């Protein structure tokens, strides 16, 4: 993927750009707002990562300008503090996701990989499948190997999010934000507990595990290897 990283902190920028390149992405860096906007307007990026606080032109303005110029690449905002208003402003201004600084690179990568496939989501999916697990989004029904699995609403949402991003690692934080709408660290391991409940329900007849733990990081749903 071609990634544009607009960030004025050179150390963070080098670290991220380097990491992105190592993971096989093409990454460009812009150190200030104007440069970032010009590069972004070229339209050749599949994903844009923007810091909210930038010299010359702030991140929100860049994204608004890009959106009005018809650039529809997914945008991920980096915010200094977990400020709800900044976050909401960013999302309303055309951002697709946000990440609070300081962040772990793995968290950024997980978000990039989820965002990177979003344009293809324009086709409305009604049935999600992973191996023998099937989720009917309209009937709100989940089957594994034909057997209906009864899920609580929250478990259903959790599984839906995992399945929509099948094969991609989703982090604990992403699950908290997207499934529970908790934009804070709940301290108690609520994601872990919910996942183990879900796992137990999905493997009632001791079928092979579908939800895999990526240690110290997150989860991924994929067919058993």
């Amino acid at each position: 993927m071609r990634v544009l990283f607009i960030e004025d902190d050179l150390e963070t920028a080098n670290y991220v750009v380097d990491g992105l390149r190592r993971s096989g992405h093409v990454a460009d860096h812009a150190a200030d707002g104007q440069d970032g906007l010009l590069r972004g307007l070229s339209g050749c990026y599949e994903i844009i990562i923007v810091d909210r606080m930038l010299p010359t032109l702030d991140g929100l303005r860049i994204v608004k300008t890009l959106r009005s110029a018809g650039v529809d690449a997914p945008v991920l905002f980096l915010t200094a503090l977990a400020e709800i208003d900044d976050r909401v402003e960013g999302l309303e201004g055309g951002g697709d996701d946000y990440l609070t600084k300081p962040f772990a690179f793995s968290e950024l990568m997980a978000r990039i990989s989820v965002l990177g496939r979003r344009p293809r989501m324009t086709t409305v999916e009604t049935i999600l499948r992973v191996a023998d697990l099937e989720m009917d989004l309209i009937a709100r029904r989940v089957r594994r190997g034909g057997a209906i699995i009864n899920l609580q609403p929250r478990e259903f949402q959790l599984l839906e999010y995992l399945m929509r991003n099948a094969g991609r690692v989703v982090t604990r934080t992403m699950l908290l934000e997207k499934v529970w709408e908790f934009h804070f660290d709940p301290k108690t391991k609520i994601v872990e507990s919910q996942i183990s409940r879900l796992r137990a329900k999905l493997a009632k007849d001791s079928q092979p595990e579908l939800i895999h733990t990526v240690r110290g990081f997150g989860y991924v749903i994929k067919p058993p290897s």
Partner: protein
Amino acid sequence: MSLSRLPRLVRTASFGLAVLYAAVLAVSVIIIGAIVYWALEISLERQTTERIDADIGLLKEELRAEGDSELIEEVQRRSDVLGLEYLLLDAKGTRIAGTMPVLSPALGWSTVELSTNRSGAGSSRTLHIHSVELDNGMRLSVADDYGSIEDMRRAWIEAAGWCLIAFLLLSVAGGLLLSRRFLRRVDTIRITAESIIRGDLESRIPLHGTNDNFDRLSLTLNQMLDRIQALMEGLRYMSNHIAHALRTPLGRLQQKLEAARKTALGNPSYETALENMQQEMEGILSTFSALLRISKIEAGARQSGFSEVDLSALLTTVCDAYSAAAEERGKVIGADIAPSLWTLGDKELLTEAMANLFDNAIKHTPAGAHISVSLYRDRSSIVASIADDGLGVPPETRDLIFERFYRLDRSANTEGTGLGLAFVAAVAGLHGSELSASDNSPGLRIELRFDVAKPPNMLPTALLRAYKADRVRYGHPSPHLEKHPSQRPQRKPVRLPI
């Protein structure tokens, strides 16, 4: 002026002074009045004496010039015309002329009191008499009725009395008026102080420009407030700066640890060490964030983000989120949440505060504990309570648990930053709700009471002023300072794409 304000008016120092002043003045007036009265009486008496003497002189002259008969005639005439009373006796003491009711007055000056009607009842008259021996052996007495002086005296006392009453009324009214002016200025000081207590640090006492005592007092107070504000802002500025300044290098350190962990793959002991360091780093960073957020919330800067919040739904969501985790630790959450209880507040902060309460209850209770959550309406307030049947908190430390970094001795080894309940306290403060910890016998009960009748008080204009001051002081934009809420768009619920 309303009746309820009257007693307060009367209680003021200025009113007391006015009353005292009026009393002193009244005494002075009474003394001056007495002096005037005394002088007046003396002068009246002298006038009477002079008048009588002049009359006697005239009659003596008459006798000398015209003889006895003319004198008798003159006395008779005068008795009919003038206000004075006359008596002319011959050498034997027989009345020759005059109408004076006294028969034989002593020679020289005398004062005779006699009753006007025969029965002795009714008013009496006092006559001031001067009797002289004439050259022809007759005795002449001229008298004046003291009654006129008495009348004047009475009139004078009456007038003085009325004056005194009027005077007292005027001074009390003046006192009231003065105290009202006084009160009004004291009230402006009080109102200013109250708005500062509510968090509007920009508020100042208005000056009248008269440079009187009040103005000077207000000026001094304002200067003191400026100083306090500068100190507080300095503190906020410093703590924000420290936290912000450390967050950046700590963030980089975190990145470096992460990078190092990748290269350490294959060396299990390094990998574990780096992972532990990374976890510690996350702990430090989350403590910093928690501190920064608590101080931001305490600064009251987020109230403009308030909207109607369904507390019932909110608590249900949080309860549901924590139930699996609680179960895993062998604890049961029982919920009794009344539906559709709404309050004005910040949804995300309230969610986090509730989450912290659950986290607290789950972490600090032994396995097998029962945690009961309830939300109900109690008259004009909504009460959210989380109670457990764990070990509880000793009464003397119950209020301390809401302090930053306070931890019970027995929790020293439990994970956590010691900021969870401090965060709840800050959120409660922002919402003007009452947070309390009590004995659940056994266990701890934490209650959050939202006053539905009284919305949290924070003036948007005050916030705007505070924001402008920030911008002047620190320049803008600054990454470490909160934006002014009025500049933010109203938050709408945004659902992130799943």
